[in-house]
C-alpha cells in the first residue's frame, strides 16, 4: 500500500538502452519498463537506471515500483535471476489473484534486458530468447487491444 501511495521511479527514460513492454491478456494491465545500462567497477554491465510506466491496478503499480527498486544497480546477470517470488516477498505479500502482476513486472524486466541485448547487437542467451518468445505471444494480443490509444 505504501508503495502504491508513493511509487518510485515512474516516468520515462529518454534514449533508454532497453525498453520492455508487456501486458496481461485477462485484466488488461500494461507495463512498460525503461532501462539504462552502465558498468560497475569490475567492468560488469549493470542496470544504472530504471523507470516504469504502468496502466493498471494497485498491485500492478506496486510491483512495477518494487521491481525498479530491486534491480537498480544490480548486474544484468543478477537482474535476470529475479523471480516473481522476490517481487512478492519485497512487497510483503500479494493476494493470490494479483500474482500475475508480479509476473508482469518480471516479464517487463526480461523484455527490457532482451531489448538491450538486441539493440546493442550482443549475443542473446538461449533461455532469455525462449522467455522472450513466450512473453511476445501474449503481448501481441494486448497491443491489438490498445492500438487506438497508443496512437
Amino acid at each position, binding site marked *: 500500500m505504501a508503495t*502504491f*501511495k508513493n*511509487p518510485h521511479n*515512474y*516516468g520515462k527514460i529518454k534514449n533508454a538502452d532497453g525498453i520492455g*513492454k508487456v501486458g*496481461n491478456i*485477462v*485484466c*488488461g*494491465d*500494461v507495463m*512498460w519498463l525503461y532501462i539504462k545500462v552502465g558498468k560497475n567497477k569490475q567492468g560488469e554491465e549493470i542496470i544504472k537506471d530504471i523507470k*516504469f*510506466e*504502468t*496502466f*493498471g*491496478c*494497485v*498491485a*500492478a*503499480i506496486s510491483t512495477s515500483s518494487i521491481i525498479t527498486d530491486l534491480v537498480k544497480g544490480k548486474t544484468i546477470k543478477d537482474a535476470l535471476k529475479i523471480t516473481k517470488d522476490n517481487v512478492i516477498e519485497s512487497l510483503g505479500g500479494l*493476494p493470490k*489473484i494479483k500474482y*500475475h502482476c508480479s509476473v508482469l513486472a518480471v516479464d517487463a524486466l526480461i523484455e527490457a534486458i532482451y531489448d538491450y541485448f538486441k539493440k546493442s547487437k550482443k549475443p542473446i542467451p538461449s533461455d532469455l530468447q525462449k522467455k522472450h518468445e513466450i512473453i511476445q505471444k501474449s503481448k501481441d494480443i494486448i497491443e491489438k*487491444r*490498445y492500438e487506438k*490509444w*497508443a496512437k
Partner: protein
Amino acid sequence: MKKIYLDYAATTPVDKRVEKAMEPFLSEKFGNTMSLHSFGQEAKLALENSRQVFADIINAKSNEIIFTSSATESNNLALKGVASASRKAASAKAPASQGHIIISSIEHPCIAESAKWLKRQGFEITKLPVDKYGLVNPKDVKNAITSKTILVSVMHASNEIGTIEPIAEIGKICKGKGIYFHTDASQSFGKITIDVKKMNIDLLTASSHKIYGPKGAGLLYIRSGVKIDPILHGGGQENGLRGSTVNVPAIVGFAKAVEICQKEMAREGARLSKLRDKLIKSVLKIKGSHLNGHPKVRLANNASFWFEFVEGESLIMRLDLEGIACSTGSACSSFKLEPSEVLLATGLKPQEAHGSLRVSLGRFTTEKEIDKLIKVLPGIVKKIREMSPYGKEN
C-alpha cells in the same frame, strides 16, 4: 480525516429509527413465529404487520409477499422456483420439453448465474442486448418470446450504471403473451414508486440493506396464481415457499426502513438528483471522462463514469486514501480480473470498461462531501495518467 461514504449502491448504514424498531425483537420479543404460545404469537403478529406494510406499498395482497434472507435468495427463488414448477407442468404434457427464460445482459450476477445454472439443467436462456445507455428495448423482449418461454426477468434499475428499465412496457408485453415477468428491484425499491398491478409485475425482488434496513432480509413478491416451487424445503414457513425460522428482527427493520423511504421519497429523490447532476456536470469537465448509463432515465443516487487511460482500481484506492469510498464495476477488483459485463454490454471496449467509477449517493450524503470529491478527482485522474504509458497530455 473525516471519511466520506459514496457507495450506497453497495450497502447502506442502518437508520437509527430502524435500529430502534428492531430492538425489542432481539431479546424481548424473540419468539419463533411458528410457536403456538404467546411468544410465538407476538412474533407472528410483528411478521404479519410487516408483510402488510410491503403489500400496501407495492399494491399487493399480504399473502403475496414472501420474506427471504436477501435479494440474491429472492432472485434465485424467482428463477429456479418458476423453472422447477414449469418443468413439472411441462413434463405432464410433453415429457421432453424444457422451458425458455429471457433475461437482460446487465442483470446482477445472482440472476445471470442462476440462469447459467438453469441452462446446465436443460433450460434455454436468452440474454437481451442493451443500447449504449444500458436500456433494454421492449421490442426485443417481444421478439425473443417463443412458445416455450416461461419467464422474463429484467431488472428495474441497474446497480452499476443506474439506468431505469422500461419495466411497465415489458410487463405489458409479458401479460399479453401469458408469460411471467420478474423484476429485480433491489436498487429502485424505496426510491421509485412501484405498483405491481399497474406495471404488470408477477414477481418482484427487494432488499433491506440497500434502503437503510439491516442485512439479512429481502423479499419476493409473488402474484397469487403464479406457479412456483420452493428452493428451501423445510418447516412450511412463508406459505411453504421458504423453509427457515423467520428472521423477525430483520424483517421488522426492513418494514420500518421502507416506511421511512416511502415517506421521504419525493424530497430525498429531488435532493439527491440535484447533487448527482452537480457531480456529473463537474466530473465530465475532466478531459477524457464519460458518463455511463442514461443521462436522464437513471436513479437519483447513481453517477457512473469511465475515464480514458485510467484503471478503475487505482482510482478507487487513491480516492480511499483521500477518505472517499466509491466503487468500480470494473476488473482487477479483488475478486475478478475481467472487466464489467454490464459496461461491455453497453458497448464499451474492455480497456474502457477498466476505467470505471461508480459514485452512489444516499441519505447521509451532503453537498460538502460531493464538493470534496469534485475537488480531488481531477488531480487523482491526472496522477494515474502520469504513471501510465498512455494518455499523457503532450
